């Protein structure tokens, strides 16, 4: 699966980074960077948690 970010919708709340720090982080400007867009296995679970926790629904998982 691939993590997709709706960039205009992202407001940098950072809850996704807390859920999946191995996959994404906020940079020094507070912009979200997806470090590992293609995920499976244990990373897929972390990605699902990050997608679920985004308060503004800016993340989703799509077929790779």
């Amino acid at each position, binding site marked *: 699966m691939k993590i997709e970010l709706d960039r*205009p919708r992202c407001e*940098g709340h950072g809850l996704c980074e807390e859920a999946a720090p191995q996959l994404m982080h906020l940079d020094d400007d*507070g912009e979200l960077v997806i470090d590992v867009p293609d995920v499976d296995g244990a990373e897929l679970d972390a990605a699902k948690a990050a997608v679920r926790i985004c308060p*503004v629904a800016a993340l989703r998982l799509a077929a790779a």
Partner: protein
Amino acid sequence: MTAPIQSDIDIWADDILVDPYPTYAELREQAAAVHLPKNDLYVLTRYDAIRDALGDPESFSSASIGFNPMVNGALQGTSLASDPPVHTQLRAVLSQNLTPRALRGLKVVIDEKADKLVAELADSGSFEAIDSLARAFPIEIVADLIGFQGHVKDNMLRWGQAAMQVLGPLNQRTQESFPIAGELYGWCSSVTAEDLAPGSIGRGIFDAEARGEIPEGSAGHIIHQYLGAGVDTTIASIGNIVALFGRHAEQFDLVRANPELVPAAFAEVLRYWAPVHIWGRKATRDVEIDGVTIPAGAQVGILFGAGNRDPRHYENPDTFDVTRNPVDHLSFGYGPHGCAGQGLAKLEAHAVIEALARRVQTLTIGDEVREPSNITRSIEKLQVEKVVAV
């Protein structure tokens, strides 16, 4: 098409507004969507149904977030009452000063102000928590942030309360609040950059308008939404923090012993007592939820507090547990209209909880006094009969 499941309650009855949780439990057990003929309304009661609706603006439009046509008409063209794609641009303008990245520099000042205020209250022996903390603190923070001065600062509480109240149905509370909400609207329509303190975010919004970065005339609307949405709700949350720590001393002790629990404690305060009772949507098509059909065009009411106590989603939902960390609670809403000010709300509330944990050993509270209110559920008076400072 299935027959709607009905209840003959009035969701804005005084006794329900003051203590809605028994009613929420009954409605939630009836169905995920329950028709209330008395209110001409379908309420959403279960966690999944609420979250799905908030994440699906195509089926649940924000054209009627309020429960009377006058207020919905007045809100047309604002971020609050619009749907994607128009919403996306309006929201960006509204939220650019409120995102965590924009607020990063404020944390130190907010923490210092909370610590000073709470330290004074802790040393006072006893205090009334709503006026002296729950109202005083966010009003000072928001006033400084937006740059309100003089008579505007004095009006923030009643204007902010009225702005929420008029979202209700055309009951007496709404009727009485329209003139006050009108004062706020009138002031926001005529406010100029010079009315706001130099260096404030409010002044910055006018500067952005002058530079053509945001549409002409939108600065006043943005100020209106900051005041309308950001005052009454935060006041409710901070009052709830004091009341719940007073009621659950063992939970407060846990936070005092483990300051890293502060964010989890605030999430649990928001889950346990939702600051917003009900919020509107309009069904754009027939929507079936767990076997109940909401017809196209119906007014929908989202009961955040009912979803937050849904046993299908949270274990022991009626237990206040600061270790639960319910980061997915519904009190900030969810999706494209998720609370734009949640970063600021968290900064303020975390600062208050940290200060209480640092400065206070024990709180002994009296009964909280509540008055029925259409949209916000907050405490009117809360006497801290005895506070023991650290």
